[in-house]
């Protein structure tokens, strides 16, 4: 796309993209660390994740402020307007994803009281797809790639399937022994948070779709 006649306007939109990128990178790191803490039973790491959540909240606030500033001072239209609106939505969705990472870290702190189990390790396979979705959704935003956004959106079904399969296993061991119920409940919440990362990433993909196409995302319109 051509550059704006007013250079500061270009710089502001670039800053918006940079802040979203930064927020995304930090959030991906938080997810990774939360999972490592859970599987590695590392309380210190878990505390670190919980403590660093504020950084992401802070980035969201900065994105909100900058977006509102651009809306007020530049009165963006067309693709610029759609970019700012998408940035506002995406910052909110990434912030929620970071909350999920921090929730997972909180489960780590509760699970260290219980013996390790294979199901804990399975969570690190479960998180792969949602993490990939988030990475790709953010790349789709950075590159205005609507096809990539659609691919992300389609991946969410696979995440749901994996999540349901995992739940069945959890139920099996809960039924097998009442002692398993407490730790399994924590795993269940952790799994739910992982599944929500997929949902939110697919919302980001929808926001990218709307940004590029200029119309709301509708499942019925997908071919």
């Amino acid at each position, binding site marked *: 796309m051509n550059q704006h006649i007013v250079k500061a306007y270009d710089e502001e939109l670039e800053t918006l993209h940079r802040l979203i990128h930064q927020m995304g990178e930090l959030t991906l790191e938080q997810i990774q660390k939360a999972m490592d803490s859970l599987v590695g039973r590392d309380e210190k790491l878990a505390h670190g994740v919980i403590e660093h959540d504020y950084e992401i909240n802070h980035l969201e606030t900065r994105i909100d402020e900058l977006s509102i500033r651009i809306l007020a001072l530049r009165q963006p239209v067309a693709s610029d307007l759609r970019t700012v609106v998408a940035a506002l939505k995406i910052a909110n969705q990434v912030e929620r994803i970071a909350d999920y990472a921090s929730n997972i870290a909180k489960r780590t702190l509760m699970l260290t009281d219980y013996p390790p189990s294979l199901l804990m390790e399975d969570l690190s396979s479960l998180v792969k797809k949602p993490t990939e979705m988030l990475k790709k959704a953010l790349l789709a935003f950075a590159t205005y790639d609507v096809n990539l956004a659609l691919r992300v959106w389609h991946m969410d079904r696979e995440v749901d399937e994996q999540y349901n399969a995992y739940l069945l296993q959890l139920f099996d061991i809960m039924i097998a022994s009442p002692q398993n119920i407490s730790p399994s409940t924590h795993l269940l919440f952790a799994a739910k948070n992982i599944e929500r990362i997929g949902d939110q990433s697919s919302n980001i993909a929808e926001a990218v779709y709307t940004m590029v196409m*200029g119309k709301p995302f509708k499942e019925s319109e997908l071919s």
Partner: protein
Amino acid sequence: MNMTSKIDIKHLNLFYGDKQALFNVSLKIPAFQTTALIGPSGCGKSSFLRCLNRMNDIVPHARMEGKVLLDREDIYAPSVDVVELRTRVGMVFQKPNPFPRSIYENVAYGPRIHALFKRKSELDEIVEVSLKRAALWEEIKDRLHQPATRLSGGQQQRLCIARAIAVNPEVILMDEPCSALDPIATAKVEELIDELREKFTLIIVTHNLQQAARVSQQTAFFHSGYLVETGETGALFTMPQDEKTQGYITGRYG
């Protein structure tokens, strides 16, 4: 969308001598809506506007091809009375241009020369209704016989709108009507434009893109004498279809 076109412009070309100013422009102007014409300086907006009430007739060397249909009738047909046409299609200019007479006489002028009334009381009523429709009445009703030139710029522009309304036109053309006004006076004129839509069809040329977005229902983007894109205003400002439109409205290099 089922809308009647008040004006239907077909394959319009305009030349000033050898120089072509408009190229094959076709556009439908919906009735009782405001259409905004936007585009860089010199792209032909004013020239286009002048074709709609035959103001180019008096421009030397100007030559037009194509058709302009007002209620499906060709305004360039030999049988058309140009003076009557200009009462049906009125015009408001960039700079407020009241006559150096009283407020009353400014509004009464059109009805007088077109003999639109029988009794003085009818003329008084036309003046009052026009000033009310132009949202000026309350401000000046006690000083109708003072010179119009004593009004503020914004009031003068609304007076010019009242003057255009007084002859009961069907269409009002406005060429950058707010470019000489401050933001408050501009807001008043914009509010007025929105109200006038009930009774008139409006076409406004504006350099202020936000103004086009605020006041119009249809926007037409001109570039170098070509009509590049026309669309519902909300759609054009959120998802323009043409690269040139996108570049212009977002303030990018073409």
